């Protein structure tokens, strides 16, 4: 409990607020973090390969490592500083993230491994530094070092793909609109604010805007089979194209509406019409709250597909429009399969056969 309060106070510092409120600082810090980390890993790898006798074998170890050490530590300091600043913006969520915890453990292990080297093979450098490789223990620590740092990189990258743990879900939502601009889904999201009953629910937006526009678009490009044979239906007149453009525009703007913080899954009292395969609104809400960045990413897919449709409309290109509408269909189905009817085996099978995106 005390730790949680401390983490919260980190989030509420002026520094953390400043980073959150700026559109640019967070990505810049991330880029700096990757730069520093690549220097740390790159220079450590050079030393480790020397210890293993793989590369730089003709260079005396002491000179090489002392030259590189300053660079490695300098870069590590930058990585630690930028990492701390990134952490502060959303401390409780990161602290609860399994990949983040794993990464910290791995960094500590890498430090212990380095201490192990210095207290063993590191003490006798003078005896072996002109040999092809370090003695056994030196080679073991070098192998461990390479493994641990690669694992640090992997754990670090996974942080951005994982949703928050159970603890953060129960915690009060942090006062942050940080999520709003994270449509890239590259970093863990803050918990969404409490549902706002004055806003339309996602279900209402779907029924009032997204479904009608989707249906219009799907109907605008179709193969019609009747007594005259098979005909391909597609926009022809200027009005046809303009109508398609209107409905694509609805889908593009729907992304913003759907992902707004505080948006409820459904209206109070709404129930599933087919509970055998569909999630009830409470379950959809739970998924949305715990995986908000995932939902944002899926909504961005819909926007991307519809944006490509706009380009097709501008060029009056029917093949491109068909491709974009197919992409819209897949974006819809993939999200529905995840949130709405995850238990519908037939829908899963159909999506699989059509090459859809199933997660």
């Amino acid at each position, binding site marked *: 409990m005390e730790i949680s309060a401390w983490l919260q106070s980190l989030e509420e510092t002026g520094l953390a607020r400043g980073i959150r409120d700026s*559109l*640019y600082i967070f*990505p*810049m810090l*991330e*880029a700096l973090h*990757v*730069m520093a*980390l*690549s*220097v*740390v*890993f*790159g*220079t450590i*790898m*050079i030393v480790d390969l020397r210890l293993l006798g793989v*590369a*730089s074998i*003709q*260079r005396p170890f002491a*000179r*090489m490592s002392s*030259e590189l050490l300053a*660079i490695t530590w300098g870069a590590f300091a930058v990585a630690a500083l930028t990492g701390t600043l990134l952490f502060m913006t959303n401390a409780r969520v990161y602290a609860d993230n399994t990949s983040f915890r794993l990464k910290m453990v791995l960094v500590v292990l890498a430090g212990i491994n380095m201490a192990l080297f210095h207290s063993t093979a590191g003490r006798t450098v003078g005896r072996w530094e002109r040999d092809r490789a370090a003695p056994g223990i030196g080679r073991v620590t070098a192998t461990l070092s390479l493994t641990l740092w*690669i694992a640090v*990189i*992997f754990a670090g*990258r*996974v942080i*951005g*793909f994982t949703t928050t743990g159970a603890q953060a879900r129960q915690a009060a939502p942090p006062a942050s609109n940080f999520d709003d*601009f994270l*449509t*890239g*889904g*590259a970093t863990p999201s803050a918990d969404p604010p409490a549902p706002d009953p004055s806003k339309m629910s996602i279900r209402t937006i779907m029924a009032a805007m997204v479904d009608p526009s989707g249906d219009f678009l799907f109907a605008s490009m179709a193969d019609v089979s009747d007594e005259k044979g098979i005909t391909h239906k597609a926009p022809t007149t200027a009005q046809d194209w303009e109508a398609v453009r209107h409905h694509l*525009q609805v889908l*593009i*703007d729907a992304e913003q509406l759907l992902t707004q913080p505080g948006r409820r899954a459904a209206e109070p009292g709404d129930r599933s019409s087919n509970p055998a395969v569909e999630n009830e609104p409470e379950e959809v809400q739970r998924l949305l709250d715990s995986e908000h960045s995932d939902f944002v990413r899926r909504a961005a*897919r819909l926007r*991307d*597909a519809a*944006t*490509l449709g*706009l*380009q*097709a409309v*501008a060029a009056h*290109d029917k093949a*491109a429009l068909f*491709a*974009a509408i*197919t*992409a819209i269909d897949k974006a819809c189905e993939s999200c529905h399969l995840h949130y709405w009817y995850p238990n519908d085996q037939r829908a899963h099978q159909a999506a699989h056969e059509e*090459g*859809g*995106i*199933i*997660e």
Partner: protein
Amino acid sequence: MNDFAVWLSTTPPSVFIQAHEVWMIPLIQSLHIVGIGIAVGSALMLALRVLEWLGTDQSVRATQLRFGPWLTGALCLLLASGGLLVIAEPVRELITISFWMKMLCVALLTALAIAFQVSVAREAQQWEQVLVKRPSVRLAALLVLVVLGCIILLGRLIAYDHIWGHLSPAPKA
């Protein structure tokens, strides 16, 4: 390009990665960062040696023989893992201004790396005494480091393209 991106996203390899994206995309991205680490380490050693700030107990030629192949190998790994990421998320990558500016920087870095390595192999003697003193060569060594920094920055910005996405080659909403 947009049509191509949509088409690519419907091809079997793309669909396969998307179907397993929960673990495949972070795995490929991590490999990509490992590649960046190797490239940055190698390029840093080469540039700092040319600037005579580091490793002066080794000749330029010996330094190039040590780190050149690793730089080339890392660039190949980056091309392969980066290619997979484009196949996996073509729409995310191909319509962002950050991606195309990054590719411009990658082309520049590759050209500099090839020119450097070929030149050192051909004119090893010249490099040791004459070329490392030449201001233009030293400037080029610094340029390599700046370009590498830009590549990393732009690579990260692909995920934040909406910050300056109005410059992207996507149709305006």
